[in-house]
């Protein structure tokens, strides 16, 4: 029996959804691979001596119409923000304004990075404006745009902290990170050569200041925090925390993943943070692109400016130039980062202005709180801001999420943070209307009301049925060549 025939009863209050799927006549696969549609092997002839060249090359050889149809079909088997609500907690899946794509497609935006500064005043000017906007929004004195993603921003920020300590003749060995933090924080600290000290939360879901006191020492290079935290709670003790970290000579690092909650209402710099990164692909509406590219600019206080990556853009009397900060950490990207992403972020900020930015955080927090009121799952921690973490209770959160797929919505982030059992971490963002939030709530509630058998067999209306993760990992087939070898 196919999945379609096994469908559970329709829920009258939920949207009816059917994702397009293209099933090959063989029946054992969806849209065939490009290689299965026709490959060609060419013998490589060249003016170069034979021993400098490869012998042959085998690749797909689709005509342009075939290519267009292939990728169009693939796109129809893919769910994006424009397909429906995408309340993936911690990811801030906003609508990506179209006009920013048009700007990124301009010929004068696509210049080579090795051009002279005098010939790139436009690009340098936009970068400088964006540095200024981000500095103002975060309450930071200087900003670098070089890091190509949030994790790269973390790495940059921690290297800045490390260089700062080294410049003070101070070798420190530890970075403190709350247990509920993003996985990248831990990986970043390790990559920079630090030992990670994991910090438990208190019963209210916030930083346990007693545990922090115990963890802090002369070895503390930095404390990495996000605020609001991953439960959506504002760390009300943030000023005390900042003082504690600064008292031992440590650096307070702000993970910008949740900045959308604070736009125009509070600034990390004012709370005592010394370094922060911004996720422009979250807060500033640049598209996530199926996993990237993003951009992870880093802001610092005046004291840390001299450690920023090389080069840094600054204004002159007549225009803009780049320079190497005095104690620069050097490079974190081969050139100047993900420029076209930065360009889109600049355009978004310009479009919204002060009032639009403040309204974005207001509506993001309003939407999260409204949605939370409409759903049946328990939400153990509050008051939350732009996101909340519900518990699927007796259900497996991953199964509940699969069931939600059947109602034409993307489910929340699941099973994380672990402080909430069977977590459903939900962030609707400001872009959803009341009507959409009601449909989203209906999907939550339909999943909540589903029995175990139903959710374990979900989804049934998506392009593909439940995918076997175990077999994918046990027997890795990572290319069409690996599939061929199997046959």
């Amino acid at each position, binding site marked *: 029996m196919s999945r379609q025939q096994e469908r559970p009863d329709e829920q009258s209050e939920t949207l009816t959804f059917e994702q397009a799927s293209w099933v090959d006549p063989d029946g054992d696969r969806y849209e065939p691979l490009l290689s299965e549609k026709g490959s060609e092997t060419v013998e490589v002839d060249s003016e170069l001596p034979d021993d400098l060249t490869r012998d042959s090359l085998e690749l797909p050889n689709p005509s342009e119409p075939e290519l267009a149809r292939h990728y169009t079909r693939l796109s129809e088997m893919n769910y994006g923000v424009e397909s429906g609500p*995408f309340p993936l907690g911690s990811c801030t899946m906003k609508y*990506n304004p179209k006009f920013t794509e048009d700007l990124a497609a301009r010929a004068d935006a696509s210049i080579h990075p090795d051009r002279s500064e005098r010939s790139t005043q436009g690009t340098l000017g936009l970068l400088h404006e964006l540095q200024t906007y981000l500095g103002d929004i975060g309450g930071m004195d200087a900003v670098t745009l070089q890091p190509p993603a949030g994790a790269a921003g973390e790495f940059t920020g921690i290297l800045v902290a490390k260089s700062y300590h080294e410049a003070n003749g101070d070798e420190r060995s530890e970075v403190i990170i709350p247990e509920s933090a993003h996985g990248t924080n831990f990986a970043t600290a390790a990559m920079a050569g630090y030992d990670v000290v994991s910090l438990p939360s208190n019963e209210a879901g916030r930083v346990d200041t007693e545990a922090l006191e115990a963890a802090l020492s002369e070895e503390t290079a930095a404390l990495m925090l996000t605020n609001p935290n991953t439960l959506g709670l504002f760390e009300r003790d943030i000023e005390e925390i900042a003082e504690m970290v600064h008292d031992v000579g440590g650096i307070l690092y702000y993970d910008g993943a949740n900045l959308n909650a604070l736009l125009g209402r509070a600034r990390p710099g004012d709370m005592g943070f010394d370094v922060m990164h911004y996720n422009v692909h979250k807060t500033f509406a640049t*598209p996530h692109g199926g*996993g990237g590219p993003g951009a992870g600019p880093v802001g610092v206080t005046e004291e840390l400016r001299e450690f920023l990556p090389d080069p840094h853009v600054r204004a002159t009397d007549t225009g803009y130039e780049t320079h190497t900060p005095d104690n620069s950490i050097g490079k974190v990207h081969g050139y100047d*980062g993900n420029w076209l992403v930065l360009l889109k972020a600049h355009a978004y900020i310009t479009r919204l202005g002060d009032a639009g930015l403040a309204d974005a955080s207001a*509506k993001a927090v309003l939407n999260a709180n409204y949605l939370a009121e409409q759903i049946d799952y328990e939400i153990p921690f509050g008051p939350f801001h732009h996101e909340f973490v519900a518990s699927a209770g007796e259900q497996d959160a991953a199964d509940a999420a699969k069931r939600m797929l059947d109602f034409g919505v993307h489910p929340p982030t699941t099973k994380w943070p672990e402080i909430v059992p069977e977590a459903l971490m939900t962030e609707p963002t400001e872009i959803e209307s009341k009507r959409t939030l009601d449909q989203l709530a209906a999907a939550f509630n339909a999943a909540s009301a589903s029995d175990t058998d139903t959710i374990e067999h979900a989804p049934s209306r998506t392009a593909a049925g439940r995918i076997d993760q175990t077999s994918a990992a046990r027997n890795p087939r990572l290319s069409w060549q690996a599939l061929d070898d199997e046959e």
Partner: protein
Amino acid sequence: MSGSPYAPHTASETTAMLDAIGVDSEEALFDIPESVRFDGEFGIDAKSEQAARRAVASTLADNDDLTEFLGRGHYDHYVPSVVDHLADRSEFITSYTQYQPEVAQGFLQALFEYQSMLVELTGLEVANCSMYDAATALGEAATLAERLRSISGTRVLVPDLLHEGRRGVLDNYVAGSDLTVETYPTADGNVDREALTEQVDETTAMVYAENPTVRGTIEEGLDTVGDLADEHDALFTLGTDIVALALLEEPASVGADVVVGDGSALGLGSAYGFGLGLFACRGDRELLRQVPGRLVGASEDSDDRRAYTLTLQTREQHIRRERATSNICSNQAWVALRTAMHVASLGPDGLVELANDSVRRARETAGRLDELTGVQAPVHDRHHFREFVARVDQPAEAIAADLEAEGYAVHAVGDHEIQVCVTEANEQALDGFVAAVSEVVR
């Protein structure tokens, strides 16, 4: 006060939602202590879409309209319209990392196809679905070498001519490890194999070479570098780019364990250094457990149809945390999609032809410049790919500045050396460029 143009709430909806929550204002939802509230202004005026476009376009117009003959690791090839239109389909560009594979089969399959193309081009068994750029991919290769139990050395050997951006990033990636970076000499642009042989021993963790080199030369005898690394249990990492892979010696056949480099030469254009980091490696178990970045694998769904999913995720930061193989999370997936589309649109014939044209254009252009008084090209007595270094009698910086005044951009790479890169994107301007060079070199 106007709000966000992308928040759809009417005043009455907002009121209804606040009522449902049981508060009387949006402000009441913020649990922020007074002492850290920000009630100032940024001074950013909201603009209409038209005005916002005009403002950005007007600033961009301050970029000079130059014809670029620039490369050195980052290239401008013509991107077919079909790539732009298909990659911009909103289901692709507005989607997230494929944590729910049942609704993300399209992107997963496209990335699986991208990985497969790299497997074919490199001859290696495994390719990930992207790193940020060539420089960070090189950094990841070095830390991979450190994690491998089969490698006990700590010295990373790189060519003395390594691109400064790549070297800078590599230095930072190894800063938290026991690795040290050393250079080995080059001879006439290519690896000085005798000198390298002297430097490689049991303390070596990785040997890095590039083909083509940053000076545009094509390496000869890379297999001996592969053998050398192999004899001393060091990782051999080869840097290259997606076009060169179609023509030059297959990395696996010269003993490369890892391939890194730039993928955005296809699919993206110059984009001010915005790139795509290639990463491929051997597929034995030890490497498979240690490879950085996202991997898409084939599996089956509940209808027993082949389906795709992110796999081997226990290597990654969201599960393994401080023991992850890398901190990478957001990557360059959408650029990889574009690159795969561009490769598919060229097909094997088109890709090999593009690579062959890259050899021909460099040779012919060097030949034309060499005929001019005051220029000798190419400097290196080697085969070239896409670009070459020319010696100029005048100071190179002055030549580059004079050419810029004529509307052309070249690299000044030495006191009397300029570097020139030719692709189909600037070939139509060659006659004017050569004429301009002949004027300014006198």
